């Protein structure tokens, strides 16, 4: 017969196996902090380049003709921020996975990515449709909303905190779609400040 210690160890191992085989836990707090910094930098550049140059407030509905050159640059800027943030997250996760001896591409990370990608791609397509209809003002709120939904969805397959982060982004997205002139401000707060807060919290909680 086993001792009590062994039974406790059995239970601990069952729990750890259940977690390891469903959740991808190689995300790092630093990824969040870096993503936030890129987003803030991007929002600042966006503000400098586009807000100050146009007579009309950028985030009001403007006809696509007038603003299309600017908007295109804005999209490029957003794309650069996105690629940098994702690239950093993959690199840091890869490093963490290597350290803990886990593989970065496994059943759990695949599931995490699929559940993250579906709402994100839906949101991306929606943003393009909004753009083509000239509803520029709704783009920033919509990116926050769909990003929040994606995080909420993906939270099941990684740290639980990601779920709450997603809910906050959804609330921010809804607020931003009500206060429609302040899109960039909400965007900077949601993607910039919130990422940094989340990143620091996760770093202190799991990596100290």
């Amino acid at each position, binding site marked *: 017969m086993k001792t009590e210690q062994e039974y406790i160890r059995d*239970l601990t191992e069952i729990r750890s196996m259940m977690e390891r*085989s469903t959740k991808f836990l190689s995300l790092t707090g630093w990824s969040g902090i870096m993503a936030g910094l890129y987003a803030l930098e991007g929002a600042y550049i966006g503000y400098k380049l586009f807000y100050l140059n146009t007579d009309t407030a950028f985030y009001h509905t403007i006809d696509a003709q007038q603003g299309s050159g600017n908007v295109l640059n804005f999209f490029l800027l957003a794309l650069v921020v996105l690629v940098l943030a994702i690239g950093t997250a993959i690199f840091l996760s890869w490093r963490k996975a290597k350290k803990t001896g886990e593989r970065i591409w496994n*059943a759990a990370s695949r599931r995490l990515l699929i559940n993250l990608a579906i709402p994100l791609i839906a949101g991306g397509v929606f943003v393009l449709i909004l753009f083509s209809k000239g509803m520029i003002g709704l783009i920033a709120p919509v990116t926050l909303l769909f990003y929040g939904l994606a995080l909420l969805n993906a939270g099941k397959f990684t740290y639980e905190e990601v779920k709450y982060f997603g809910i906050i982004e959804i609330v921010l997205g809804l607020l931003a779609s009500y206060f429609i002139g302040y899109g960039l401000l909400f965007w900077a707060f949601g993607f910039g400040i919130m990422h940094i807060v989340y990143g620091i919290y996760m770093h202190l909680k799991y990596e100290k």
Partner: protein
Amino acid sequence: MKTIIDDLHKAFESRVRLGIMAALAVNDTLDFNALKEYLDVTDGNLASHLKALEKEAFIEVKKTFVKSKPNTRYFMTKSGKKSFEAHISALENLIRSQK
């Protein structure tokens, strides 16, 4: 006390088998390689434990082809799920009763 120990199933005495059941309890299906990665055991060792669980009818095999390569996927049967859950609550009861 006696009844609690009766609930501890013999098939789950091995830690590898316990690990297999835990992983299959929270995943619809898993293939051989995924299980191997989670458990960190050799092919032969894993295969023999899987066979033992199959014999108890706790797990079943589903053979499919992925790009014309055979892919063996395992999943937990209803009776396997029941026995595994009974085993966990027996473990919990045992620990609680000894406190």
